[in-house]
């Protein structure tokens, strides 16, 4: 029966000891330990969150980079195309103007040649005329040395005149 009869003395000392222990441990052990653990847990949580945010930011940055790069590439293509177009225009313009110029030059050269040719022809004509007159003069002179022949020629000429 002793075994299961509570004794006031031990109950008193147990209560006192336990309360003192709980008070001291609460102040000196549980508060700092649990506080430190809580701080650590929240710092780990914060660090994880920060890492997650950084990862997200990184992804956004990457996407931005990609977009910018894409835009730059598109712009470059645009510029190249424009440049190509400008080049084509310039080249064709130059071609056109060169052709015009050439045509003009050819035309003027042709005109000069034509003029020269006409001048040469007219000169040749006049020289040929003068020469033929001279030749005719000389031939006539030689032909018409005697009077018979002169008469014959004149009559011949006259014949022609009649026929006209």
């Amino acid at each position, binding site marked *: 029966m002793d075994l299961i009869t509570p004794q006031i*003395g*031990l109950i008193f000392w*147990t209560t006192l000891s336990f309360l003192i222990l*709980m008070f001291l441990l609460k102040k000196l052990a*549980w508060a700092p330990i649990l*506080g430190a653990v809580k701080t650590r847990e929240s710092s780990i949580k914060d660090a994880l969150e920060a890492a997650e945010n950084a990862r997200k930011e990184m992804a956004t940055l990457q996407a931005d980079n990609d977009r910018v790069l894409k835009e730059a590439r598109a712009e470059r293509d645009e510029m190249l195309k424009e440049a190509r177009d400008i080049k084509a225009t310039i080249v064709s313009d130059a071609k056109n103007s060169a052709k015009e110029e050439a045509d003009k030059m050819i035309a003027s050269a042709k005109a000069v040649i034509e003029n020269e040719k006409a001048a040469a022809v007219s000169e040749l004509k006049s020289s040929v005329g003068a020469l033929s007159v001279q030749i005719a003069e000389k031939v006539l002179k030689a032909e018409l040395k005697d009077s018979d022949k002169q008469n014959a020629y004149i009559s011949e000429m006259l014949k022609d005149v009649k026929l006209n």
Partner: protein
Amino acid sequence: MKTTLKFIITLSAFLATSANLFAGAKSAEQGDKKEFDAVEVIMHHIADAHEFHILDYVDSAGVEHPVSLPLPVILFTDGHLDVFMSSAFDHGHADVVRGNRTYRMDHGHITELGGLHPIDFSITKNVFSMFLSLIIILSIFISVGRTYRKGNVVPKGLASFMEPLVLFVRDDIAVPNIGKKADKFLPYLLTVFFFIWINNLIGLVPFFPGSANLTGNISFTVTLALITFLITNFNGNKDYWKHIFATPGVPVWLAPIMIPVEIMGILAKPIALLIRLFANITAGHIIILSLISLIFIFKSVAIAPVSVGFVLFMNVLELLVAAIQAYIFTLLSALFIGMAVEEHEHH
């Protein structure tokens, strides 16, 4: 594994037969006072004492001298406080006179010969053992606490050993059972866990200053269960009391039956706590002492290896039980507190 099992079975069979012998021996002893009485030895050990018995030695003249640490006796009798060392009783051979009061030690009990009733606040063996545990627990946790107060975020040394235990109580006992309000009760649960555990372990040390059966003492378990009881009921919310005095869904005419049943339920909880701890620890001490007593009952050294083997096995088991009982006490306390502070969903 198989051989170990065989060994244990053989030993169990052996022990079963020895139990009969033990019973026979006991009746034979009654004639001869000098015979070894295992029951007396065990009961003496299990009970509290006013001195811390260390050993006995027999001098050359054949006289037995007990060697023990005398502990202070504090008695409150009829308005007088009497304090003296238990050695004044000379192991029960002498009476102590203080004023008009004469005290006699009779089988561990102090009586007043004049018919007064002294209230015994002595620092007994168990109280001594408890003070020892206070010193151990405080030195462990104050040093651990200091590590953290210095601003160390990463635990080192002793702290790295104790922190998982503290977190175990928090994350596996307090939070799952109490929930959001766990932080408020955590100092109590942590203290009770380590208080019971360390005292269980001190009780397992087979020689001075261990071996006191403090956690297997009903006064100790009554006190702790009472603290849990008070915490539970002082923190019980409206739903908790409503459940006791007007159980939802039960017709009013059943109240005369329901209310006593619920009140019995309130009382049964701490009683379950105190009996479980008391019975487990006391049983452990009794088994180990019984096994050791076998050697003296048989008066044979040959039985010693068997006893020692069993005691070793039991001690290892008791190491486990020491932790498990601390865990269960804390877990059930958390459970009872959790039931009292739980926020019920209103249907």
